[in-house]
């Protein structure tokens, strides 16, 4: 009897596991053979374009929490947008103006835009989106904005606490959400006025979207997209297996040929560079962390390293050719000061600079010294980043002939944060928003989180950066952003104080189905999110355009 009583539930448990694995979609069984082929390549039998370009937004697709700040928000549309040449264009906005004191931005919006649920997009929604983003504690930092107000049926005004020319980038990136349908769970079923709408999101696996029939702009040619959330190695495997038509792949895999796919490389501002602590070591502390480094505090050391590095060799050797030399943090962008592109791989000039500053090898040990300080310091890099490790190794080799020794050390970000004011670190940045320049070099924000960790301080540069933020127009701001890099006598570039040695900009590498035309490739920001989708409405199948129909690969 006892066996019976216990065995029954046990058998139940055992079979429960079996049943769970059989429970799904029994009635579909007859379709099995028909769909077998689809497992390998869905595009050949369905209209879905499958992409593996990383970037799942775990917290949901809610712009007020930060969705869409790289690339396009896809489900939502923005007030302004970039065109392929990264020039500002109107999107939802029909015009905008900045007040005399630069504290108020007035924006007029179009009234023909509809959300995908059919309700019109109004000024009310725009103001709501900005105010909500400010207060939500997400990844949109609008702490400098006081309030967004509705001023008319189709006009909104934004009131800032300080002048800020870079506010324009919030108009470009913040997708407008519908006030009537926005709540805590909005990110899981977003409703917007963008080119696509969400069909379903299977977390950890895929996101399926379909063209939004109510979209006011250019209708996308690709009706249905599936974004797979794979890590980059699996993405490459999936591309090889023919499962995906667009895959973001790491540079080291990019030159491996995959049948039916072509390699697309996007130039980027995604840079890597060495930050030098610019203060002398003392007993000072900042937020309880040690400050200063006697070697890197000398501008001659920093400049000499800048001149000694062979950036083209780094591109070839470390990035496999998939990159460009970087002489600043904003390469390829409009506000880069081109004069800062020095002639590098110049050991002679580097040695001369060091000699001039009094660095000599007094004790004949192969290392320079000056007033008892030996020219060696630690260079930190995040231990899990292969490219940064390789860059650090190569740079250490390049400066060794000068008599400067870099001691390399891989650590976690949390450890790096604790020593970043006293030791050199290999960082990577790169944004469309020049506010980044301000945070990298302005003395007022020194040591706040990762802002200006080397505590660089140059009043002239501070003044340029302030003027850039306070500028009335983009053109005017650009002038000051450039001057901060080099104004003819000072600046943050290698020509000036050289608080950083920028090394390379990474090319972002994608494998794309040969039949797919993805339009103009833009200069991309630091590699997160989906920058490649910024022009997704222009994507189309080549065969379709030629009127041949179908999209099969040969």
């Amino acid at each position: 009897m006892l066996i019976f009583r216990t065995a029954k539930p046990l058998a139940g448990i055992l079979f429960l596991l079996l049943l769970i694995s059989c429970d799904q979609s029994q009635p579909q069984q007859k379709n099995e053979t028909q769909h077998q082929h689809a497992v390998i390549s869905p595009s050949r039998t369905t209209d879905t374009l499958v992409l593996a370009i990383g970037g799942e937004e775990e917290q949901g697709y809610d712009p007020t929490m930060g969705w869409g700040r790289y690339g396009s928000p896809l489900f939502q549309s923005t007030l302004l947008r970039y065109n392929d040449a990264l020039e500002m264009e109107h999107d939802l906005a029909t015009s905008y103006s900045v007040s005399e004191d630069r504290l108020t931005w007035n924006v007029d919006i179009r009234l023909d835009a509809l959300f995908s649920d059919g309700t019109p997009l109004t000024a009310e929604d725009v103001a709501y989106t900005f105010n909500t983003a400010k207060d939500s504690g997400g990844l949109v930092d609008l702490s400098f904005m006081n309030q967004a107000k509705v001023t008319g049926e189709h006009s909104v005004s934004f009131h800032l606490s300080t002048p800020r020319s870079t506010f324009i980038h919030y108009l470009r990136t913040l997708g407008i959400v519908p006030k009537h349908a926005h709540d805590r769970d909005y990110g899981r079923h977003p409703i917007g006025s963008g080119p696509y709408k969400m069909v379903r999101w299977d977390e950890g696996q895929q996101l399926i979207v379909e063209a939004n029939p109510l979209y006011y702009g250019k209708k996308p040619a690709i009706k249905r997209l599936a974004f797979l959330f794979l890590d980059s190695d699996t993405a490459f495997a999936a591309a090889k297996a023919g499962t995906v038509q667009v895959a973001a792949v790491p540079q080291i895999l990019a030159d491996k040929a995959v049948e039916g796919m072509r390699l697309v490389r996007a130039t980027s501002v995604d840079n890597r560079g060495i930050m030098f602590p610019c203060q002398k070591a003392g007993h000072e502390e900042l937020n309880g962390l040690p400050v200063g480094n006697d070697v890197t505090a000398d501008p001659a050391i920093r400049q000499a390293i800048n001149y000694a590095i062979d950036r083209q060799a780094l591109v070839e050797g470390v990035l496999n050719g998939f990159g460009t030399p970087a002489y600043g943090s904003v390469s390829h962008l409009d506000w880069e000061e081109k004069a800062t592109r020095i002639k590098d791989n110049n050991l002679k000039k580097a040695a001369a600079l060091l000699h001039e500053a009094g660095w000599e090898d007094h004790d004949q040990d192969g290392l320079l010294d000056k007033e008892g300080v030996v020219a060696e310091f630690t260079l930190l890099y995040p231990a899990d980043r292969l490219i940064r490790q390789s860059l650090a190794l190569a740079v250490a080799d390049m400066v060794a002939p000068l008599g400067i020794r870099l001691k390399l050390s891989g650590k976690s970000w949390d450890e790096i944060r604790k020593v970043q004011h006293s030791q050199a670190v290999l960082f990577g940045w790169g944004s469309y928003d020049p506010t980044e320049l301000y945070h990298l070099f302005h003395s007022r924000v020194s040591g706040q989180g990762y802002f200006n960790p080397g505590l660089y301080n140059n009043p002239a540069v501070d003044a340029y950066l302030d003027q850039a933020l306070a500028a009335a127009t983009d053109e005017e701001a650009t002038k000051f952003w450039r001057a901060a890099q080099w104004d003819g006598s000072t600046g943050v570039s290698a020509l000036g104080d050289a608080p950083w040695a920028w090394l390379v900009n990474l090319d972002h590498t994608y494998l794309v189905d040969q039949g797919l035309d993805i339009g103009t490739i833009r200069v991309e920001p630091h590699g997160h999110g989906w920058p490649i989708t910024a022009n997704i409405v222009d994507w189309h199948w080549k065969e379709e355009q030629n009127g041949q129909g179908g999209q099969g690969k040969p």
Partner: protein
Amino acid sequence: MKFFLRKKLIQLILILPAVAMLSFALLQFSPIDPVQAYIGADMLQMSQEQRQQIAERWGLDQPPLMRYLHWQKEILSGNMGRSLIFQEPVTKVIARRFLPSLALMGAAWLLSGVIGFILGIIAGLKENSIYDRLIRLYAYTLASTPTFWLGMLLVIIFSVQLGWTPVCCAYPPGMNPSDVSIGQWLRHLLLPAATLSIISVAAVTLHTRQKLLEVLNSDFVLFARAKGESTWGVFRRHALRHTLLPALTIQFATFGELFGGSILAEQVFSYPGLGQATIKAGLGGDIPLLLGIVLVSALFVFFGNTVADLLYTVIDPRMRKATTS
């Protein structure tokens, strides 16, 4: 029986708070700053004010003890809190992710149990034969193979080179789960489940083999043989029950390892289960979610061990007597 369940229930009531407290304490020592993990690459865009705002939204501005007490109060009222990274109630995240994981673990568990037991029997019955040696070689090699490595190897061979199995995911990309046929669904389960089971086969095989040899060398088997029993007869009438016991114990006791293995396998195959969520929660410093998963997995492992205990009483009459008396 009643006594047994009551004892188990008391154990569970003691274990869960201990696990919760220990996990919470460990997380306090973790170097991961959840706010920084959340901000990630945007760290040059975030002002101190914004960081502060994020910390406040997550309640991280409170001292740890307050946060723990608050969390415990919520748990007792059936609320597991809100996941930081998923922006959703923890129960919802776990509920959605548990089923795929359970299917994966269940399939792997059955496969490894059945295959492991059969291999163990073959090896034991044919001691020192070529079969025995091959099986042991296989078991020793796999016992020391990392799950993720095997997973990647299988993907390279079967998915990329041969194209027999899909590279990733729980069903074909681009399809709605309601349109997925059971064949497709099993196909996608095959490789992750194989990865998990191939590795856990080893323990069952070796234990079964060992026990079988022990039984075959015992006096009562000698006696049975003396009476003219064939090897098969000996095995069926005398050895089967004895060997089943350690096999089942091992099987249920490996629930913990199964869970750990599935975390890695899910990562390799982009299989959207609880394991993947665990990694995200750990790296993102998502304390509510991580603690929720820890509690659920503790329950899961506890359940496995309890079933193993119960099974003893079913298979071994002597133990039944001990527990009922």
